[in-house]
């Protein structure tokens, strides 16, 4: 049944050009920033691009677009209505949709993180291979946490307007290093990428926090969709 349930979000994402445009745009933004850092021979080019453009803009916006594409731009409840109409349990339908979005976001953000680290690598950055691996790992955690956050947001509002509210909330609360940033993927992703930690938390703590946030948000999204 899971394979059948996954067909709907897969087809939505694959056959909706409207969903590809933001994906392409945010990917190109990250690549452009990395090429700019490379052309300027910035000694900490990778660090600068990953903490700045990648962590603060590209990962959240990519995850936002992926979730929107996977659920069809509306609410999470509406996105599972077709499979529920054919007898699938709502919780399982929502779980597969959210899981698919989280997986795609993690893989894309990991790949893009690795590419940007390689493109913008400067002389003062950590060794290239290690930097690529760490960037991919951070991108995967960040993409997963953001996708789960936006999936939960899509469970609020008739048209899933909570997704946009949480995008803005994360951007505002995660911008500084206060305790509130502990609740946002942005604060932890910045820390894992080598930026300022939220409330003095270590990198490993932020990595664990990103996994925990992804799980909590995903479970909340599914729970909110399981009942009519």
């Amino acid at each position, binding site marked *: *049944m899971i394979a*059948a*349930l996954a*067909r*709907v979000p897969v*087809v*939505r994402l*694959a*056959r*909706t050009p409207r969903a590809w445009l933001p994906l392409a745009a945010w990917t190109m933004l990250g690549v452009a920033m990395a090429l700019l850092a490379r052309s300027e021979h910035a000694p900490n080019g990778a660090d600068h691009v990953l903490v700045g453009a990648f962590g603060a803009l590209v990962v959240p916006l990519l995850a936002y677009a992926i979730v929107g594409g996977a659920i*069809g731009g509306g609410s999470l409840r*509406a996105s599972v*209505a*077709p*499979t*529920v*109409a*054919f*007898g*699938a*349990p709502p919780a399982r339908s929502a779980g597969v949709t959210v899981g698919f979005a989280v997986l795609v976001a993690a893989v894309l953000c990991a790949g893009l993180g690795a590419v940007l680290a390689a493109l913008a690598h400067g002389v003062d950055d950590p060794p290239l291979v290690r930097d690529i691996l760490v960037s991919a790992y951070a991108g995967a955690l960040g993409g997963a946490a953001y996708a789960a956050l936006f999936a939960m947001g899509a469970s609020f509002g008739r048209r899933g307007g909570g997704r946009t509210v949480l995008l803005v909330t994360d951007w505002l609360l995660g911008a500084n290093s206060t305790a509130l940033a502990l609740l946002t993927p942005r604060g932890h992703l910045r820390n894992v990428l080598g930026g300022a930690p939220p409330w003095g938390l270590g990198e490993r703590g932020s990595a664990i926090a990103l996994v925990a946030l992804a799980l909590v948000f995903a479970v909340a999204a599914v729970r909110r969709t399981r*009942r*009519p």
Partner: protein
Amino acid sequence: MSDASDMSGEPVVALRGLVSRTAPLSRAGLTIAWGVGLHAIVGTVADGGPLLLALVAGRERVRAGELRVLGHAPDDASVRPQIALVPVVPPLPEAMRVHEVLALAASLRGEPERPAAERLAPLGIEALGPRAVRSLSLEEARAVAMAEAITSTRVRVLLLDEPLAGLDPRAAGRLPALLRARASDGAAVLIATASVRDAGELADDHAVLQAGALVGQAASLDALSAFTPAGIRMRVLASDPQALVAALAREPEIEAVARRDGVVVARGGSARSLAQAVGRAVLEAGVEIVEMRLEPPSLDDTRLAVAGIAQGTFEAARARTAASTAPRPSTRPPEIAS
């Protein structure tokens, strides 16, 4: 509930004191049961027909009372794939093609996959198979959802909201026979409609709702028509409406007659006496008949009639009908208010 218990006559859908969380079914507790067959829930959206279907399908939450479908709660894992709800706007996966939707539905319902053309052909819409769902009109999408529900081998409870409204014309003509065949195969078909005509054409019994409350039930709308305050109406499309109106006006069985846009509408006390009177008038006027059909009572008249029967005033209604069909002096019938 097992197949055997269904065959023993136990209700397929049973509501006892059911109260919804949302209006209009949020106050009065509904108690009603439906078995295998064709059943209509007559009422508007404001009366709660579509909401009742959603409750039976497990798409709306119950606040109080009991709801059993095939012997279980409607969200039971074993029951859910056996329920098909076709609302006015069916939720089909917009990015898929129609044949992919049917394959997905078969997979989720746990039935063998069959060629899309085979499942769409009964409604005459096999040409829609390769089309993307997002390219379908609402009428076509409704026909696809209807075809999925009707041709599913697993579905045993079909819940159809306004099945003949906004349906692809290719499908609308074939739907009544297909629903009857499904009911004969052991399915319970529940139709929510505000059209008394559709209810009469499609269903064998009728539960009439008003503002969320069950006003009453009637086995047949034809019989019910005799007890409605406005009596029975017949529409006749004839070659010479003026001559027919003049002939009808001389018939004592006709209570009122009117001509609207070339169509003659006659009112009488019972279907039989009305048909006989129209037949005599047609012969007397020497006109050719293009179309002739009984008009169902209005929704309000139906509610009044059902409520009257439910409250034990059946005999009074019968007496009124008998009085209205008794021979009277031949006078010009009054015009029907338009």
